[in-house]
């Protein structure tokens, strides 16, 4: 039996504060797909993620996530929110932060702790588990939050600007890890970065109140110019992280 799509939106419209943020949006993401979502600020990317998580309600249309209506599927979703919402002075260790993605039981059993440490190790932070979240670098904090998103073995990973505030080396390492993860889960990644699309991304969803979905190789500079309504200096695609960069246009 064929599993339902990981994400399916049918004629979804959403207004916030009296303005139309998304109008009559329809698209779907298949299981196991690695999809990018790009678009200008205020175009509705984050609202779309919030709709998928049930944090916002659509005014019309139907949303299905892993075959369920949001927020019913939330425990099967890993979510990375935008980094700037966090208090860097908060008294919590990297391990405790990851555990918040796993259990709220009064006592973290050894099994849960091992799982959280394993998620940190997967992000290259095994030695930082006991360190305060506050003293980690911006890139390390971002990876802690990705470990938190992954620790519950989600079927769908929603990432909101995971490469914001991280340097290029961390970004490459992150893309490398995501490329490996896509073998076992569906990934939808919101990004402001139109310059780098890592290997493995099959389609790019362009969001600016409406949605257009393009296969990665057909995302031309003209498409981006229409989306952002301004000229972009350089756009290169199909860059294979860890290997030589591929083709480009812009």
């Amino acid at each position, binding site marked *: 039996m064929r599993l339902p799509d990981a994400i399916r939106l049918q004629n979804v419209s959403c207004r916030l*504060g009296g303005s139309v943020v998304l109008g009559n949006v329809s698209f779907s993401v298949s299981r196991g797909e690695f999809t990018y979502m790009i678009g200008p600020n205020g175009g509705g990317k984050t609202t779309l993620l919030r709709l998928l*998580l049930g*944090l916002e309600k659509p005014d019309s249309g139907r949303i299905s996530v892993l075959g369920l209506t949001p*927020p019913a599927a*939330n*425990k099967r*979703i890993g*979510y990375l*929110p935008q980094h700037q*919402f*966090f*208090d860097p*002075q*908060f*008294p*919590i*260790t990297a391990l*405790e*932060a990851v*555990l*918040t*993605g796993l*259990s*709220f*039981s*009064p006592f*973290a059993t050894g099994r849960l702790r091992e799982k959280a440490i394993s998620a940190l190790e997967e992000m290259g932070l095994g030695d930082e588990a006991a*360190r*305060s979240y*506050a003293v980690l670098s911006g890139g390390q904090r971002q990876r802690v939050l990705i470990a*938190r998103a992954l620790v*519950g073995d989600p079927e769908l990973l929603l990432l909101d600007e995971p490469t914001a505030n991280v340097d290029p080396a961390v970004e490459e390492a992150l893309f490398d890890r995501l490329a490996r993860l896509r073998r076992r889960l569906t990934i939808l990644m919101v990004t402001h970065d139109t310059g780098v699309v890592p290997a493995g991304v099959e389609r790019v969803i362009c969001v600016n109140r409406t949605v257009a979905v393009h296969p990665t190789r057909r995302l031309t500079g003209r498409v981006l110019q229409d989306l952002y309504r301004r000229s972009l200096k350089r756009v290169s695609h199909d860059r294979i992280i860890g290997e030589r960069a591929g083709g480009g246009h812009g």
Partner: protein
Amino acid sequence: MAEFWQAFQDPGFPFLRYALAAGLLSSVAFGILGPVIVARRISFVAGSISHSMLGGIGLALFLRHQLGWSWCTPGAGALAAALSSAAVIGAVRTRRGEREDTVIAAVWTVGMAAGVLFLSLTPVFVDPMSYLFGNILLLTRNDLWMIAGLDALLLIVVLLLYRPLLAVCFDEEFARIRGLNTGALSMLLFGLTALTVALLLPMVGTVLVIALLTLPAALAGRFTKHLWSMMIAAAAVSAVFAVAGVALSAVIDIPSGAAIVLLLGAVYLIPVLLKRRR
């Protein structure tokens, strides 16, 4: 200092022993709740709930003296006002489009204005200073039992709900996505804050209680990396400053609550000011 110890040991003057016991007992409450308030960045919510109690106190005194409702005590009025304010702020937080900081300011100032109004209408003179700043030296054995009960309640809550509280304080939206009832947890936190400021009203009043909820926690946060260790450190800091403040007030004859807060404020603020000048 010798006079202090003499007075402390004098069986005819229990107030100093009660004051020290209250300082130590309340340290547990300040130690548990303070770090949650500081980490969650809701000090102004606590301030609003605390200051709004003056409205309840004023109304209770007015009803007591004007209508002869002897059961209507200032403590009951303070508790009712604090819980009502917590409910209002908690309800508004969940509504989109409301400016939370404006609502907090409105609850704060309306509560104080109502207090001033009702106190002026009360047919007997009431000095508002005792409610604004409290007096740790006037506490009774009953007050101590109440604070001990509050400590027990807060300990039970934090033992059972430590991880949900940590998750909500760290990232409320993520906790909600993970299935936690964050609205109920926030309401519980505001309710516990209301209960704490109301029960500690006779000790430090509506104004100083905010300093004791936030400053020990903020000091503890400088050298701890877990919320639980911040709680233990905040309780220890609070206890040390309570004892030091009561001793200082006895030696140089100044109000105890003010002495505790001034000592805490100095130790917290001086490094902050020195750091900024570098």
